[in-house]
């Protein structure tokens, strides 16, 4: 084994350890993976039906991911993006094509355990063709310092009968500043689910902009946000769902718990311009519900422990 290969494996292992995980998935030959530290690809393994073409750039990596027509990738593909040093810029350009009637799930881990001055940018273009299914779980683990800016952006198109589900989780460590910007366009009978769960503390800044356009007949979409802000953290959630075709159905659901001096804003927008389409929304912002709190306190939990448990539940 070359010293570079050995060094890459060690770096990949450290990134996984920073996530609180082992690197067992990287040794499973049936599990595809791609591990990127800064602008270096430190681990890569493919399975049949999946093509990944990474190119290292000055400040990151340009990646094309292609799932071939009809391919069903059984095990979730592991992707890991991170920066181990205290400072750095990581720009990921990702062009994803999920070809007709194929299916894949991605487990994306993003870790910046030592960030003091780190910027992580993700600019994704995702095409999910007719009958294809794409699930993307992005889990962030940050360190105790708030010196990180996360800028994920995605433009997604769904073909007929296609399905796209994405979960964004940032529950461990300081958020720093995050600006999520996702926009999806849905064709006939496609299904869109976008979920975001973020726990803000200190002086964290959370901005979420999620937009779904239900343009096809029978298209369905749900945008869900669960946010907690404590200390002096601030969150602004902008969810927009438009429906412009018969039998398009959508729902926007935003819940934000505010504690201490935190501030939360929700802007749910629903726009319907077809008489047979239907979109609903609900938004709830405020402190922890009194009845929930008193129920747990009546079991002997302190107020602080009760609040923590309620928030853990909401973000679980």
């Amino acid at each position: 084994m070359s010293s570079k290969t050995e060094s890459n494996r060690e770096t990949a292992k450290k990134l996984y350890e920073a996530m609180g995980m082992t690197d067992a998935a990287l040794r499973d030959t049936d599990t595809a993976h791609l591990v990127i530290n800064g602008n270096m690809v430190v681990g890569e393994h493919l399975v049949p039906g999946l093509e990944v073409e990474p190119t290292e750039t000055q400040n990151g990596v340009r990646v094309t991911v292609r799932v071939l027509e009809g391919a069903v990738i059984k095990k979730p593909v592991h992707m890991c993006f991170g920066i181990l040093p205290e400072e750095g810029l990581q720009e990921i350009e990702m062009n994803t094509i999920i070809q007709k009637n194929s299916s894949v799930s991605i487990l994306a881990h993003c870790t910046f355990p030592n960030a003091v001055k780190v910027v992580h940018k993700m600019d994704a273009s995702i095409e999910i063709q007719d009958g294809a299914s794409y699930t993307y779980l992005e889990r962030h683990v940050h360190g105790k310092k708030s010196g990180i800016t996360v800028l994920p952006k995605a433009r997604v198109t769904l073909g007929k009968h296609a399905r796209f589900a994405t979960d964004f989780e940032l529950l461990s460590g300081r958020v720093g500043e995050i600006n999520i910007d996702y926009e999806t366009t849905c064709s006939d009978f496609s299904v869109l689910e976008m979920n975001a769960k973020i726990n803000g503390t200190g002086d964290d800044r959370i901005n979420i902009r999620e937009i779904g356009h239900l343009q096809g007949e029978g298209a369905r979409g749900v945008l869900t946000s669960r946010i907690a802000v404590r200390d002096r953290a601030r969150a602004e959630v902008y969810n927009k769902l438009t429906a412009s075709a018969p039998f398009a159905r959508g729902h926007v659901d935003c819940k934000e718990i505010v504690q201490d001096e935190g501030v939360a804003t929700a802007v749910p927008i629903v726009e319907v311009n077809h008489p047979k389409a239907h979109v609903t929304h609900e938004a709830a912002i405020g402190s922890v519900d009194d009845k929930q709190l008193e129920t747990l306190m009546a079991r002997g939990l302190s107020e602080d422990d009760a609040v923590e448990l309620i928030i853990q539940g909401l973000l679980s």
Partner: protein
Amino acid sequence: MENHMSILNIENLSLSLGEKPILNNLSIDFWEGHVHAIVGPNGAGKSTLAFTIMGLGGYRHIDGDIRMDGQSIRELSVDQRARMGISLGWQEPARFEGLSVRSYLKASAAQNQNGSVDEALNMVGLEPADYLSRSVDKTLSGGERKRIELASLIVMQPRLVLLDEPDSGIDVEALERIFDAIKVLKERGSTIILITHSLAVLNQAEHAFLLCHGEVVDKGVTEKIRGYFENKCIPCAHKNEPDTGEMIQ
């Protein structure tokens, strides 16, 4: 003559919500290890009494006193009262989005090292394998949440359990489970106060207090108070006697 020991004393308790008096110079002793029932018409102050004993927000500004083991608890918070051994099951239990049944019951068991989550669920007729991973939220029926709340009290094993309308939203079959669980709580040493409209629930008690307009207008063994449910409400000083038409016969 049997010698009874009080666990909780309500002494000249009065409480108003806004301008409206709800509890009016109420005095009650609850005997340790017994099952008591508080009955009365809507608006009599039954649930208010339970919330006041638990010390919930909005029910703290009282006249009079509440003593547990002779010690005043009127200045104590809800969790302090719970750690003294008082707990409450709500008529309509809270929903917790995302909080698993396992986490809820484990948190409830923190005061009782012998509490078994599985055993508690079995006792209320819920299969642990089917429920532990579910969330205590709107995906559960009202009856399921009610039973899970009772399970949370079983794992906690408080010394004094307040149950507000324990049969609310419960079907007949599950109600027997609830009654069995009340018996087990008593066998394990809990004192139980049932807030109820229901004759079936009243029949689980050994003693009962009839409340009307925030006052105790009758008390005694259950057989005596049962007459209230048989449309024989005793005459009282109030102009409007309880409407027995709403009672479950």
